[in-house]
């Protein structure tokens, strides 16, 4: 028996040695300079500071032709930790290409909602602007831990679909506090090169709306007093649509999200956000751009809480090459409808170096 086990061990070891794992390892990072001013504040309204941004280790490995692993491990500034930095696993998933362009994925993914979350993730060097859409901080469920079925580039329209089921926005990477999984249904088409239209639906049931979990950028409204959050059950829906065109000259992206949340206490809250980006490539490396970004969280919302904002930005991107660029951006943010809970009246100037290696 021992001889058989030894023989099997030797055969397996030799077999593994014979298979070379093909891996791609990249790093991504960014650094910012920020000059911000709160026009409503009389005490030290202006702040100027440098910021060491997220640093991201990206690994993509092929074990066999049809089985691959993708991991994204991020270190970022986190106030309150012993070193003021923390590490997180942003993506860790196994992918099995079971038939042609159809795959099944298992693990932690970026929820395939809209264009930005599906395409850019943490790679600032790919971002067309400095900041993510504002909705990322409030209503977009960024991650999902579970199983995903994916198809891409199907037929003449390059149809793609994603169906994901897993731990939702109130869950951690090791635990979910209720039986109902978060569900994502998404599709997109790419009728021509550089053009993509997409739509998606996301649903999650939160048995305790005050638990924020790790799968969302969930920041509550700036005016909300923490510790007073609603602890009851909440139904979270997000319906989104996006149009993206990144051609040789023109770049355009619009992301719309409508997110009704329902509680037995205050009924259904109608929340929405919209992000519009336009850039024009003057020469190969120079891209001036403009952004209008807005969000409205209804007064009866018990997840993010009442809040609204509209932000205008003008910027300029210079791409040294595909691995490093610098962006400069001026922005002005104010209330969209005049929120009663917080007054926003800010101007900002930012510069960002984003790189990959």
């Amino acid at each position, binding site marked *: 028996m021992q001889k058989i086990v030894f023989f099997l061990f030797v055969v397996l070891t030799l077999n593994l040695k014979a298979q070379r794992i*093909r891996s*791609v390892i*990249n790093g991504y990072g960014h650094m910012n300079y920020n000059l911000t001013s709160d026009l409503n504040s009389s005490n030290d309204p202006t702040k100027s500071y440098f910021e060491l941004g997220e640093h991201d280790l*990206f690994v*993509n490995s*092929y074990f066999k*032709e*049809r089985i*691959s692993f*993708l991991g994204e491990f991020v270190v970022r500034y986190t106030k309150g930790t012993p070193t003021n930095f923390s590490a997180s696993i942003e*993506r860790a*998933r196994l*992918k099995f*290409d079971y038939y*042609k*362009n159809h*795959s099944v994925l298992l693990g932690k993914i970026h929820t395939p909602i809209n264009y930005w979350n*599906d*395409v850019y*993730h943490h*790679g600032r060097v*790919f971002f067309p602007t400095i900041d993510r859409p504002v909705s990322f901080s409030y209503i977009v469920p960024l991650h999902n831990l579970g199983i995903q079925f994916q198809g*891409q*580039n199907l037929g003449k329209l*390059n149809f793609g679909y994603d169906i994901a089921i897993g731990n939702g926005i109130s869950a951690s990477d090791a635990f979910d506090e209720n039986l109902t999984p978060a569900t994502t249904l998404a599709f997109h088409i790419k009728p021509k*090169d550089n053009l993509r239209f997409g739509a998606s639906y996301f649903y999650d049931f939160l048995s305790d709306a005050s638990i924020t979990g790790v799968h969302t950028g969930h920041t509550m409204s700036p005016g909300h007093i923490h510790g007073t959050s609603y602890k009851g059950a909440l139904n979270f829906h997000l319906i989104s649509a996006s149009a993206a065109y990144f051609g*040789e000259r023109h770049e355009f992206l619009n992301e719309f999200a409508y997110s009704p949340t329902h509680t037995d206490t205050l009924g259904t809250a109608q929340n929405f956000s919209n992000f519009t980006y336009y850039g024009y490539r003057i020469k*190969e490396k120079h891209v001036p751009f403009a952004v209008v970004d807005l969000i409205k969280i209804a007064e009866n919302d018990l997840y993010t809480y009442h809040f609204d904002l509209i932000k205008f930005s003008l910027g300029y991107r210079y*791409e040294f*090459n*595909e*691995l490093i660029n610098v962006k400069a951006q001026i922005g002005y943010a104010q209330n969209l409808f005049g929120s009663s809970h917080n007054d926003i009246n800010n101007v900002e100037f930012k510069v960002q170096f984003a790189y*990959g290696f």
Partner: protein
Amino acid sequence: MVFRLVIFVSIAFFHLALKAQSFSNYQVIGNSIGIKSMDEANFKSCMKGKNNFWNNNNQVLIVLPSSSHPNAESISKLIYNKSHTSVRKYWLSLVFQGRVASPKFCDTDQEIIEFIQEKKGAIGIVSKSSNIPDNLKITIQP
């Protein structure tokens, strides 16, 4: 008369520039991809990472010229209608999204040929003047 001459020279120059970017100067090569000819649109689609597998179930492995390759710019224009930098950015982004396997970038035609000879399912493009084994040649129909 001078105006007509300028127009004629411009058209001739434009025609030559287009010809320089046509497939007539290049040979598509592939190893065990299950076909010996394909049309131009299919080839371009394949080189854009739109198929994970060939019909014979071999994985599509794309081989491209690196920035050190002398034909990097012209091949990028020919297949992607983009600069070589934009092509590298295109692939970096697709790999980062986790949608495709990373292509192999080679410095010379000889390196491309040797790599494709070794890997089943690999496809690439080299100058017609290269020393190409017949069994790798793929005919491109316009």
